[in-house]
């Protein structure tokens, strides 16, 4: 099996893009230097992550991971697999054309646009102040104290605006979303219109008429900066604050094993909600383990394999659709009548598996505890006295690892987790636990229960392509009962949302003195 993976396209975790005003551009993963995918190539092969087999037992691993998902190579076209199935096919086609022109083009285009807008915004007040001095210095009234005070005000407000814009917009990009981020686009347009209108007014009333009242000009510049600060306030409210109040409860289900979680989201567009859900997915959902699904697949295959359908009437008698229909109905009827003992097998198999897991776990716990007793932390004074045979954490981990390796390998095989942990990662984890004085139980915790996807190596979750499939437009807001899918290579997440109901609360006052009690008399009943 080819164990090399090439990644391209959308990575949510490329940390380094200097974002200013990003209008939904896609960010490429720059850290994948070993990506062989050049920009002109349009296809990528996504393979299974290259996990080292535990203790080199590749033959066993081969037979274990025989099921469909791991073995096949999938080809996906980069750059265009993020799309929303909206009614506008034309939009989709033009988007495809756009993307095929250049993946980075759009991102750089929006970034340069944002930088230009930023420069325009910051230099405008300064230009307003400086231009009169340049163009008609002799006519200009001298700047009095009040006017100079306004200079200080302009300076500090510009500084605050600079810091605020840096805080809000200059953050590393989290993700590449399929459509334009509507609020950012609106804000950019608003700022542009605003600045343009100020320039128009300035040009007509002040430049043309060469106004001498410099204080008025300075106040005009101050009003511009004030208004920009208010627009920034609007940006904070629209981009950050509005979605904080929870409005919807979304239920996220993984399609392969039914793992479900519920989250509270505010008023978001569908693409932003999808982004939030994916981030929660990486932190909350236990890692997707396709080896656990093979049992149910083999059961289903056995169920169908027992029946064979023969067409007695001869070909060409019925229409194709009618034939298929009658075939499937015959199969269902036959399956219903057949005495099926597969439930029995399942019950005993599961009981046996449980027993085996528990036995292996007991052996593992004992082995690890014993291994941990072999090393002891040296105190400071002892370190100076006996310099020989002293090990650092990594060496200590390597020294005690062999005594527990076999038990750990058997346990991981029984719980079908062996491809999630490589030998290197286990030794690293062991060294980490030794360094931090953790007990054997703490060391074992990450192997006994499947943790969230982020806990595992980057091969397991890095650079996954997520496709948002939605009937409604992805820039429209979440509504009660909206359903969309987040498709990944191996599985998909089905998301349904429900509105949190309006709560009508009333009050009832209880006087503290009204709590009185009396002994209960014996009741008497006549019969």
């Amino acid at each position, binding site marked *: 099996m080819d164990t090399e993976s090439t990644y391209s396209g959308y990575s949510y975790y490329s940390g380094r893009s200097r974002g200013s005003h990003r209008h939904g551009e896609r960010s490429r993963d720059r850290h994948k230097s070993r990506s062989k995918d050049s920009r002109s190539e349009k296809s990528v092969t996504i393979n299974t992550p290259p996990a080292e087999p535990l203790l080199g037992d590749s033959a066993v691993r081969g037979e274990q991971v025989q099921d469909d998902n791991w073995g096949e190579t999938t080809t996906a076209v980069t750059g265009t697999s993020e799309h929303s199935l909206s009614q506008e096919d034309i939009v989709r086609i033009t988007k495809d054309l756009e993307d095929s022109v250049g993946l980075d083009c759009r991102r750089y285009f929006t970034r340069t646009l944002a930088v230009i807008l930023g420069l325009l915004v910051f230099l405008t007040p300064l230009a307003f102040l400086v231009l009169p001095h340049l163009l008609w210095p002799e006519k200009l009234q001298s700047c009095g104290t009040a006017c100079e005070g306004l200079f200080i005000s302009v300076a500090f407000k510009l500084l605050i605006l600079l810091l605020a814009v840096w805080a809000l917009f200059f953050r590393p990009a989290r993700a590449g979303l399929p459509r334009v981020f509507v609020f950012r686009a609106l804000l950019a347009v608003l700022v542009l219109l605003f600045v343009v209108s100020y320039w128009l007014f300035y040009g007509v009333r002040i430049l043309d008429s060469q106004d001498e009242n410099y204080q008025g000009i300075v106040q005009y510049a101050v009003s511009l900066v004030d208004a920009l600060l208010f627009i920034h306030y609007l940006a904070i409210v629209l981009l950050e604050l509005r979605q904080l109040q929870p409005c919807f409860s979304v239920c996220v289900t993984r399609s392969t094993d039914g793992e479900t979680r519920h989250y509270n989201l505010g008023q978001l567009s569908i693409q932003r909600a999808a982004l939030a859900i994916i981030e929660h997915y990486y932190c909350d959902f236990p890692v997707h383990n396709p080896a656990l699904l093979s049992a149910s697949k083999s059961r289903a295959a056995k169920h169908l394999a027992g029946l064979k359908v023969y067409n007695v009437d001869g070909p060409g008698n019925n229409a194709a659709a009618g034939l298929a229909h009658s075939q499937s109905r015959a199969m269902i009827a036959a399956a219903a009548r057949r005495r099926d003992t597969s439930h029995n097998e399942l019950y005993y198999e599961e009981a046996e598996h449980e027993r085996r897991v528990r036995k292996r776990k007991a052996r593992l716990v004992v082995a690890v505890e014993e291994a941990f007793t072999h090393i002891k932390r040296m105190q400071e004074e002892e370190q100076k006295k006996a310099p020989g045979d002293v090990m650092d954490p990594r060496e200590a981990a390597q020294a005690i690892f062999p005594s527990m390796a076999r038990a750990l390998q058997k346990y991981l095989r029984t719980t079908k987790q062996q491809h999630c942990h490589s030998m290197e990662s286990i030794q690293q984890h062991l060294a980490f636990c030794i360094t931090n004085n953790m007990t054997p139980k703490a060391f074992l915790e990450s192997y006994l229960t499947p943790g969230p996807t982020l806990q595992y190596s980057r091969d397991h979750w890095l650079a996954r392509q997520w496709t948002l499939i939605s009937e409604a437009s992805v820039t429209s807001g979440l509504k009660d009962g909206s359903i969309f899918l987040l498709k990944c290579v191996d599985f998909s997440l089905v998301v349904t949302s429900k509105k949190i109901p309006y709560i009508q609360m009333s009050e009832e006052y209880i006087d503290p003195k009204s709590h009185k009690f009396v*002994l*209960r*008399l*014996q*009741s*008497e*009943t*006549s*019969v």
Partner: protein
Amino acid sequence: ETLVKLVSQQRIEIQKLRQGNNLILGFSIGGGIDQDPGQNPFSEDKTDKGIYVTRITPGGPADVAGLMMGDKIMQVNGWDMTMVTHDKARKRLTKKNEDVVRLLVTRKSLEEAVKQSMGGFPRP
């Protein structure tokens, strides 16, 4: 002087009387595990949560059968009544398909009852 408390167990059979739509027995009960036992005037032990006869309708079926006020009902038709709730006791006595109830009651002896009623000696 030492006091010997005598209790006698009586088996009393009451024939229910039909009055309109109901079958009545002609007495009232008090007590039960969901009631306050300290209020029971008839019990020796103030933690006794048993069912006691609190009133007898004069001339009624219970009176005719010989039930007396203050009797503790131990069994009704074989059902134990020492650990029942008040409502359960009522239900067991008023079953519509039974015409006769056979009670097993405990009664303090007549002598002690007479002495107590005359206020002769201190209550325990």
